[in-house]
């Protein structure tokens, strides 16, 4: 069985935001507006956080692309009363919108604050409804959503493989953010496959995970040089 995971090389990321927008375009996440900004209710499955240190003129800044960690041991899944969020056998923490009752337990229990509640009905203009991706359901007000590692792409890739009567290859499946990242900072693949790039990178000395001490075992690894660990 595969275990899909991501490696994010902070030394490469240029903070360009291509991953953020690619995710929204792929997954029908509506853009925000000033009201959502004021109330901190904007949705972005992938965001680039920034960490700034130092005093003028000796400042340093680090860009932190942050999707769902797809925890091996996900706190969000444990608290869902209806099984709307679950860990699938290939390592992806998924969300079923039609099951979600909007209790927001998971939102509160995710230590990385990576679950988003739809406080508003997604407001697409009439014209913009044209660009919606038919592979991904639109959400209703009152459900929780999150990064799925573009799970629908995996489904599609599997069907293509089946049609061609071959095994699924690792490179057949890549989330939208990874596909577009211009610097190659995002790397995706099978963490169980010793030949894969992510397997190798997740084990090098530059690798670390966010809030490792919580025991959530994120399947997203970060790489960086020097003192930025942890």
């Amino acid at each position, binding site marked *: 069985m595969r275990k899909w995971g991501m490696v994010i090389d902070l030394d490469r990321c240029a*903070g360009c935001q291509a991953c953020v927008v690619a995710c929204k375009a*792929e997954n029908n996440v509506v853009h925000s507006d*000033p009201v959502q900004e004021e109330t901190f209710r904007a949705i972005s499955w992938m965001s680039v956080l920034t960490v700034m240190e130092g005093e003028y003129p000796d400042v340093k800044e680090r860009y932190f692309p942050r999707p769902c960690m797809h925890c091996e041991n996900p706190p969000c899944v444990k608290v869902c009363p209806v099984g709307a969020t679950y860990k699938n056998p290939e390592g992806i923490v998924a969300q079923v919108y039609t099951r979600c009752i909007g209790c927001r337990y998971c939102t509160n229990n995710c230590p990385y604050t990576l679950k988003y509640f739809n406080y508003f009905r997604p407001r697409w203009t009439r014209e913009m409804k044209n660009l919606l991706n038919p592979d991904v359901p639109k959400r209703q007000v009152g459900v929780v959503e999150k990064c799925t590692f573009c799970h629908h792409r995996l489904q599609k890739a599997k069907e293509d493989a089946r049609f061609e009567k071959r095994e699924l290859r690792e490179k057949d499946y890549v989330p939208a953010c990874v596909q577009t990242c211009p610097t190659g900072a995002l790397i995706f693949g099978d963490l169980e496959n010793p030949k894969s790039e992510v397997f190798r990178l997740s084990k090098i000395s530059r690798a670390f995970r966010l809030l490792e001490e919580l025991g959530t075992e994120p399947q997203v690894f970060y790489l960086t040089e020097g003192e930025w660990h942890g």
Partner: protein
Amino acid sequence: MAIKRRDFLKIGGGISLSLPLYTCISDKSYNSTSRSNWLAGVERWVPSVCQACPGGCGIMVRLVDDRAVKIEGNPIHPLNKGKVCPKGQSGLQLLYSSERIRGPLKKVGSRNEERWEEISWDEALDTVSTKLQQLRESGQSHTVAFAGKNQQNTTDELISRFLEVYGSPHFFKFDEWAALKNAYFVSQGINDIMAVDFNNSRLILSFGASFLSNWPNVMENQRIYGEKRAGGDLKIIQIEPRFSIEASRADKWIPINPGSEGLLALGIASVLVKERLYNQAFIERFTSRFNEFRDYILQNITLDQVSEITGVPLSSIIEIAKEFNTHQPAVAVADSNLSYSGNGLFDILAVHSLNALAGNIDSPGGFLRRRQAPLTDLPPVILDSAAKKAFSEEKQKAVSQRDMIDNLINNSSQGIRCLLLSSPGHHFDSIIQKKKTDILENIPFIVSFSPFMDETSSLADIILPDTTFYEKWQDHHSSPLSEIPIVGISRPVIKPLYQSRPLESTLLTLAKSMGENFVQNFPWSDYKEILFYRIKGLFRAKKGSIFSSSYEEAQLRILEERRWWTRQHDSEDAFMKDILEKGGWQDPSYHFNERSFVYQNKSRRFVFTSSHEIKDQGAAENPENGDYPLRLFLFDLPFTSTDSGSKNMPWYQENLGFRFGLMWKIWVEVNPDTAGDIGIRDKDIVWVESPQGRIKAVARVFPGIGPDIAGIPLNKAEHPLASKEEAASNDPLHLLGETYDERTGVPDRISTHVKIYKARGR
């Protein structure tokens, strides 16, 4: 209609057909097929070219039935190799923007108002063509002007041709990179910009250059940056008043007083010259006036003075010079944002002189000059007597951007009577901001081709709405900032929406309605025919190839650099079919030592400029004014300056403030000490006021900006729907005074002074 489809899709049923799909994921599976049986609708991928900035990245647009639903990069396009930037990713929001103009409009009521009436294409074209013919018949053809952006495509040729046949010398092309071109013209005699071979340089000494965020070839630069950061050998020093994205990625950020970049470059040059750390052989063979330059520097530049004016410590200046010398090949890079200071040419020339000292011109890891792609030229124009007469008379011809602007806003006997406008871009917008009334007063008839309601279209008497680039044929030539000539073929991804029409078709229709001479000069039935005519030149040229895998590309480069070349297509038809499928053509080889191509001045050398010939540096600044204690520093956000369309891309706009935790607000960056002095706290809502006006912004206390500077971004939208913006009243450009760069005519962005105070309430 496609929208309805969604409801059907939700149910999850649907058909699936096998159609070619470029999966874009690995280069091997470039040509594969999708067979999902749960996907509703017919899926197709169409190769095209993103033109949301001048970059021209290769894209693959995913269509489901007739809706465009996602953009990915074309994996074999040599510029972006399968990647797309956030603006490109937001592109479909531009296409499906609710701000699109649906069909031709005529202004009703006063010209200052924006009240419109829908009219038919026939009526609109008739009005414009009648007007043009009247002016021409009365010997006034030279009073017609076309204002647009400097574009890298055949539309430019078409417009020039139209004006030439008509008899007008006035094609005003606003160019973001005008200042840089001027500098290369002065130093090397070329009216072009040079590429930087980042791939092979070991040090980037950047004087505020936004090479990772705002250059047209940003995708190439980001790729190189990523590769080199993962184990390569590349050092970056960013010299800039503000801790920009580039500064944050650099090994070292050197803050500098705004407008003194050129002087610092001369300071660095003086260290190199004094210690003889320059490339003697290059200087002897390829440069002239080095002795004057050396003497000038030795006599006039003292490091203490440089340090005082620039604010850069003496030790840093010496250290930078040493590093520049030891990390060869190194490039000293400037970009046109230095020209927003009133004195840009001086600064850029001073920076470029470092490259000459190091001998890094036309050499690996240095500055290269891109060749033109061998497209077929259009046949020569045949002028009729009216046009000949127009050109024979001493009609004033706009030479510099400055002249163009004067021409537009100052009424004179030579004044423009009819102005045709096609998205001239941000430079022009910033002029309109200040001079709208003058333009309207002086120019009695204005036509806009803008696809959106925006600053430019608000001027118009008639709007003939263009489509976006997703709905038309186009060729796109790569920016000269990258040394590889690339021609990307952009094709309509969907049919023109609403009643919009490609500008090119509109021009051809107009031409055909204007008499025998026009018909003779425009024999083509549509724009696509013109493009194909030109593209066939690529087949006939004995070089380059249609986009191919990286491996094949490397092979070709090796062969071509040894002047070998093999034909890959037997016939023109086969070539055309292939180029449309792959998305374009490139020539990866670079030929060094073609001296007359790199130096086109008389001496065929790099000419050093001693700075006194330009202007005395550092003298102008600091008008002491206690009322306005802070210096305003306006900067560009990534890719907002290159196209006014960015305000119609909410996905893109909402992320521009990510470093400041802001989505739909303009912010002002203030140094922590300064904030303390003026009593402003982080996240206060403040007024920023200059003698010219005031705007509202969120104060962000930011250690990445020098004391007493107020940094404000330009072109930040405050609402996802452009029409809901109160932009006109809250645009930072309103703060600027009436000083302009001498040569480019662009408003000076760094010498205005402001004060900041808390706004009441929220």
